[in-house]
């Protein structure tokens, strides 16, 4: 996936200092606080986030936009659908 597929990000959650399940919990907080249509980017250096977050997004009924390799961390992008 490339950057061009990413809709404009409305909020970035920097969870790079946090370990599993920290980044997922940070995303959940952002989803709770956000509006439908928000596109949230989670920055995580924890390898578990790449698998945990998409699974949670599927169960919670939001849209997993993608995971992007950044310099030393992953950017995981999620759209709030409900």
């Amino acid at each position, binding site marked *: 996936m490339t950057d061009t597929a990413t809709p404009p990000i409305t909020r970035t*959650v920097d969870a790079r200092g946090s*370990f599993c399940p920290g980044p997922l919990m940070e995303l959940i907080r952002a989803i709770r606080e956000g509006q439908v249509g928000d596109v949230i980017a989670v920055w995580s250096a924890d390898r578990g986030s790449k698998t945990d977050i998409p699974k949670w997004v599927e169960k919670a009924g939001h849209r997993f936009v993608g995971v992007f390799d950044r310099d030393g961390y992953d950017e995981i992008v999620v759209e709030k659908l409900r």
Partner: protein
Amino acid sequence: MQRILVLGGGVGGTLAANLIARKLRRQIARGEAVVTVVDLTGHHTYQPGFMYIAMGGERAKNLERPERRLLDKEVELVVGQIERIDAAGRLVELADGMRLPYDHLVLATGSRILPELIEHFDTEAHHFYTAEAAARLRAALDDFKGGKLVIGIAGMPYKCPPAPLEVAFLVESELRERGLRDKTELHFCSPIGRVFTIETVSEMATPYFEQKGIEVHTFFNVETIDAEHKTVNSLEGEELPYDLLILVPPHKGAQVVIDAGLAPPSGWLPTDRHTLQVKHLAAPNTPDEQIERYPNVYALGDATDLPLSKAGSTAHFEAPIVAERIAAAVLGREPHAKEGSYTGKVMCFFEIGDGKGTLLQFDYEHPPRPPKPNQLWHLGKIVFNKTYWLTVPRGRV
């Protein structure tokens, strides 16, 4: 005169104060140093025992001792409520107006539970994070005649991560013994994608849920409790009916450290993972090495934001590091390289039910490899709980 002030008389604060006093005995005797603990109640509570009020016939009075009796005689104790911490002015003020200037500060202010963050929690859900709540849960279990029993976690992080799993296993054993197991549906709800945060522990515990017929609901983040229809509802859209509901309440760090500008709204103090010095609040993407540390302010135990268990054991293994670093500062020497650097060591027992337990031992670099559960580790936990007063706070183990 070097003034060392310890806020909080729990496991971490009590042990740190005693270890500092031991290292500075001569300086204290000569009037060159003073160690003071400030505690809200003056009573030290052994919180891991609360679960056993609900599950094992423990009594609240056995879980409390006067803090004064646990402290080294050289440590001063002030009973009072902390009103304000002024890190720039190196001063702590109490609600009664007492002013305590310090040279070295230890924040052992712990965590607090906030059931009120979820509507109807107080009337619908049980928990075991205070002696009173655990006694109410015991009474509810005594009245329970079967039905849907839901155990869940309504916020992370929380104190004693294995506790809700232990409660699930112990309740299941109890219901079997009381002949109620086949009349009961047991559900366990985890906010994350597995039953426990640490993968190796999750791998160990998951087969027990299967074996004991406890239905696991992963990614279940408690959002609301519907008191009328008796359902607990998740952010993810799941709705679980209950007859008896047991939830770990949401937790936060102490309000006073948030008000002091030392911690973010969560209340967990940004803490250096090795030196345990409190870090200045910084913008989210500031590299860790660029974040300034308070040279004379330390945090330990539940109060920190470290990615470790909020458990007495964590405080127990952190206290010697804080003591070594403060003693070194007072004595004008460098801290001992090994004794002054925390490795993330944590060790705790884990009940599996049916009189069996296991041991979780880990640090930052090594995840736990729990041994096969047996009766010995269960007995180990019971003995540890009973002998706690003579060992941990006094630095004997």
